[in-house]
């Protein structure tokens, strides 16, 4: 008998698994440093179809179209990218009730050095709240699996967009 336990899964392993458990195969994203291990893990896993988009709005359009045609998807981006989205969220997935799941790495808080990022960050939750888009901020590893799975599951069950915010408390933030 060896005493070598498998290493505990990291936040990005947990999130990747939650996507698979909910049949989310399409990942449209705009690159981000904090999301890098998540996106690299997704690219390494043949379960997923994943690619970079030029702009976050596009990614929302792509995932909306795929969803209506029977393929579940997720949009990944950083906080400032999310801030470009209110018009398309309101007029497309919210108005048409299409469950677009979003994963946003939170930047602009807990030691941010860029004033612009800090101000943009304050717009994120009010935008989500104003459209009734449920969002949960993932801060703890022991809650990560439950929060990710249940948020994604509810989005599809209720046909409404949802957003998982990856806090620096969980990811370690931008180095």
């Amino acid at each position, binding site marked *: 008998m060896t005493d070598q336990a498998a290493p505990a899964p990291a936040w990005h392993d947990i999130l990747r698994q939650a996507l698979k458990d909910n049949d989310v195969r*399409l990942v*449209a994203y705009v690159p981000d440093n904090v999301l890098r291990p998540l996106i690299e893990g997704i690219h390494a896993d043949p379960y997923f*179809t994943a*690619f*970079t*988009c*030029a*702009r976050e*709005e*596009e*990614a*929302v*359009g*792509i*995932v*909306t*179209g*795929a*969803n*209506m*045609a*029977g*393929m579940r*998807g997720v949009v990944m981006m950083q906080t400032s990218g999310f801030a470009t989205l209110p*018009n*398309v969220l*309101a*007029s*497309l997935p919210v*108005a*048409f*009730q*299409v469950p677009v799941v979003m994963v946003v790495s939170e930047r602009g808080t807990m030691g941010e050095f860029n004033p612009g990022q800090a101000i943009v960050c304050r717009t994120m939750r009010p935008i989500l709240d104003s459209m009734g888009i449920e969002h949960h901020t993932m801060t703890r590893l022991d809650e990560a699996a439950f929060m990710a799975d249940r948020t994604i599951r509810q989005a599809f069950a209720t046909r409404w967009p949802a957003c998982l915010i990856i806090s620096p408390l969980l990811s370690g933030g931008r180095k």
Partner: protein
Amino acid sequence: MTDTTDNLHVMNRAALTIRLVGKLENREAVIGGIGNSNWDLWGAGKERGENFYMLGSMGLAAPIAFGVAIAQPKRRVFALEGDGSLLMQLGCLSTIAAQKPANLTIVIWDNGIYQITGGQGTPAAAARTDMVAIARASGIASAAWAADEAEFDALVTKALTTDGPHVIGVKIDNEPGRNQTDRDPIRFRETFSRAMAQAV
């Protein structure tokens, strides 16, 4: 097919939309862009469940169509988008070119104006920007202007029978949309999703 804008016949969006829809025999999906592109699609075949009418999110007809094309590689998918709309999301041409969806075609209705807000000219028109050349430079090799109705028909046939992605540019007149869609997004989504659940 036509590579430059020098000898393009100005055509009519409503008439060409009817022409396009008339050639669809295999439950092809058609995504109509905001405003007049939508309205003429509605006029050409509002009974088609495979039509999707975007209400807002200007510029996203091609990305929505691209998403449908990813989800259903056996189904041919068309985006009908205005030049002003596409100008808002030119980056999507590179995104699409990078992924090479073989079943996607983007039709650009180019009248050089923001017709729905009062006919103001687009900066692209003022600068004589060639939208098809942008598509080709973005990496979509099969991108051509339709010089006249016959060439439009030929390009649609090519889109229906060969691997894309394809871009078809059309210079159109200033006639406003002849119809207006209902404004019922939930019904549009339900109808479209039900139609997409039918095998090609």
